[in-house]
């Protein structure tokens, strides 16, 4: 029955411990909505035919007591739904004491996760099945929202404060993370995944998960900073120009003129993007002033320099 209704309503798999209970309430509420809507519409059609002009009219209308009774019954049902729903909601808001905490930073347009042992990951969040996981989240720029449909959880991620969300995955698998709060041109691409793993596999992954010339440090930094959300490394233009062959090339500027993409220009573009805009690209890039230290910016420039040749 659960599986049949879940599929009929197109709900995603029930991959967290919350999902089953919430879906059960969902079936009841939406089922009632459909039934009530059907009854009201059939009544309208029936009255329109039965009481059409020229048909005999009854002596009395519907007594007020019937209407008051219906209103009272409806209100009672609404209150019951509210009570059940709020009890579920409270559980979802209060993480258990033994939850594993993962520090989460959202930014345009990526997710960054840091595990208790210092291991870090971008976009893919690996968690052990059966273990409560609490995300302590903040945003670096605008409001985002952490949403895993298969878990039925969602929480806005707000700059300047932390918000929390928790869940326990009940089955191994890959479950999509979507950003649910509109955050700009890359909003619909701000996707990641929760990868729920059997506890043994998870422990092995975490232990093995701990790079070293300047360019590969730059590549790792660029991934962490979300540069690849807008810049490709294979020569295809995306929201921003591709990094392939960018270094040393002559760039046409918005508003006329041109500039050679050298170390100085690339660094300036990271720290003050609107200063010299590449013609044909929207002015979407955020500033990295204060977010990248001097050596980090240099590492990214070194990485871009390493992409001079063909792919």
């Amino acid at each position: 029955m659960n599986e049949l209704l879940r599929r009929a309503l197109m709900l995603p798999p029930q991959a967290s411990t919350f999902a089953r209970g919430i879906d059960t309430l969902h079936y009841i509420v939406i089922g009632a909505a459909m039934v009530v809507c059907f009854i009201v519409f059939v009544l309208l059609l029936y009255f329109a035919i039965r009481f059409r002009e020229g048909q005999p009219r009854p002596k009395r209308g519907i007594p007020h007591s019937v209407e008051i009774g219906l209103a009272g019954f409806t209100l009672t049902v609404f209150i019951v739904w509210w009570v059940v729903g709020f009890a579920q909601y409270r559980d979802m808001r209060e993480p258990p004491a033994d939850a594993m905490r993962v520090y989460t930073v959202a930014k345009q347009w990526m997710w960054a996760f840091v595990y208790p042992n210092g291991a870090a990951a971008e976009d893919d969040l690996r968690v052990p099945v059966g273990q409560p996981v609490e995300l302590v989240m903040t945003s670096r720029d605008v409001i985002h929202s952490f949403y895993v449909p298969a878990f039925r959880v969602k929480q806005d991620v707000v700059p300047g404060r932390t918000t929390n969300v928790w869940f326990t995955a009940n089955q191994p698998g890959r479950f999509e993370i979507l950003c649910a709060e509109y955050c700009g041109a890359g909003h619909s691409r701000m996707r990641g995944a929760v990868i729920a793993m059997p506890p043994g596999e998870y422990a092995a992954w975490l232990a093995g998960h701990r790079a070293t010339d300047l360019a590969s440090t730059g590549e790792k930094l660029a991934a962490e900073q979300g540069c690849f959300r807008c810049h490709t490394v294979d020569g295809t233009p995306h929201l921003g120009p591709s990094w392939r062959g960018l270094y040393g090339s002559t760039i046409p500027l918005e508003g006329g003129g041109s500039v050679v993409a050298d170390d100085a220009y690339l660094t300036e573009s990271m720290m003050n993007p609107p200063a010299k805009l590449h013609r044909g690209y929207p002015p979407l890039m955020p500033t990295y002033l204060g977010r990248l230290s001097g050596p980090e910016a240099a590492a990214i420039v070194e990485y871009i320099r390493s992409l001079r040749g063909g792919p």
Partner: protein
Amino acid sequence: MPASFWSEPRGLRSWLLTHDHKRIGVMYLFTVLFFLLLGGMFALVLRLSLVTPENALVSAHTYDKLFTQHGIVMVWLFMIPSIPSAFGNILLPLMIGARDVAFPRLNLASYYIFLVGGIVVCVALIAGGVDTGWTFYTPYSTSSAAATNWAVIGVFITGISSILTGLNFIATVHTMRLKGMRWRDMPLFVWNLYSTSIILVLATPVLGLVLLLVGADHIWALGIFEPAAGGDPVLFQHLFWFYSHPAVYIMILPAMGVVAEVVSTFSHRRPAWYGAIVLASLGIALVGFLTWGHHMFVAGMSTFDSGVFGALSMLVAIFSAIKVFAWVSTMYGGSITLATPLLYVFTFIFLFVFGGMSGVAVATTSLDVHWHDTYFVVAHFHFIMVGGTMTGFLAALHYWFPKLSGRMYSETWAKLACAAVSIGFILTFTPQFLLGNAGMPRRYATYPAQYQWLHVLSTSGACLLALGMFTVAAYLLYAIVRGPHVDNPWRSASFEWRSASPPPSENFVDVPVLKDAYDYEDVP
């Protein structure tokens, strides 16, 4: 054409500087229809671009501007003024036996302020467009392109117009009723306009305040909503929804008034449960102010607050349920004529009941967590708020078209168009409920491929809806020129039908005699 408010007094100047509430209402009507067309065009491009998962039609940035501008134009330039400012202006004095509204000059000023606001919003569209979403959420909006300021200022200006119209209606209802007309004698449409006006006057200043703060944050970097400067982006949401939730009642209450009038007229029966409908209207207007937090269950608000806002939202829903019971029982024992306005009311009730029940569903805190900011919410508010306002507006247009023009349109074409609009609308938004269930967030320029077939269904519905709307425009324009002359084709007992159709400039040539607005015994 006999002398009516259309031709008397003559001249363009007499129209542009008119104090006649009917002419001002007509100017509003054509202005909001223009904005309906503009907002509808944005919606069509939006729907067409969603036919493929990778959005082959427009870039992500353009897509963002499309849904933002669709929202801004439809909410502030069509739905808010649609029924109250257009039909409210035309009918309120007629329904209470008055010559005009209480402050005719202010009424004209209100129209021009609205027009200036609309033009300023259009400047924003031309000056590069706005990509913030119609909700202007900070800090995204305060860091977005400069055209946002134009949109914010434009909406601020239309707000002034809303406040003035609300004040005017309240004063009119209090002071201009025909001698002897008691509050409980007023037609239900008047009660709904009155309730709407209370919201317009009390809620709109808060919208004005919050939009000015966004503008100030944007221009001078005051940092009121900017966390890095000690501001709070969630505060913006509280202030924004303090207006924008009651705003949905600004849209739906007048439509409910239209439904009450149409159900009564076409059932040739007094509205059942008049007192309950009146109390429910006022209840919605007042409790509607206390439910804004249900937009913020996952925004980082406290658990307790979410519970309180959830409970109060249930209370608002029960007032709406009472109204539905009253409309359905008005039809019981009636003598029903199935004309086009009543068919639109059937669609209204269908959309309103399912939209309302899905509203109760999203007010249930735990369920909202999954649905919040997904297509489910998009479908929900389009069913109840857009569907409700649009079918109410179309019912009003078809019901009062003969009143305004003195001519009748083709009922056959009207019924066909009503079917296209109704089926088109339901086909557009039903798949979106399922998209939301499946977890598709709103405002996505691109989407995972598994959702495509539902998007294709939705877009085909939108095309049918557009076809229906253009058909309505075609036969109504034809009827203005060639339609047969009529006076009171619905045999309505309501007060506005006691003046000629179209009414003369002074509304009633002789001082009208007070009669029951729902006196259906002496109607053949």
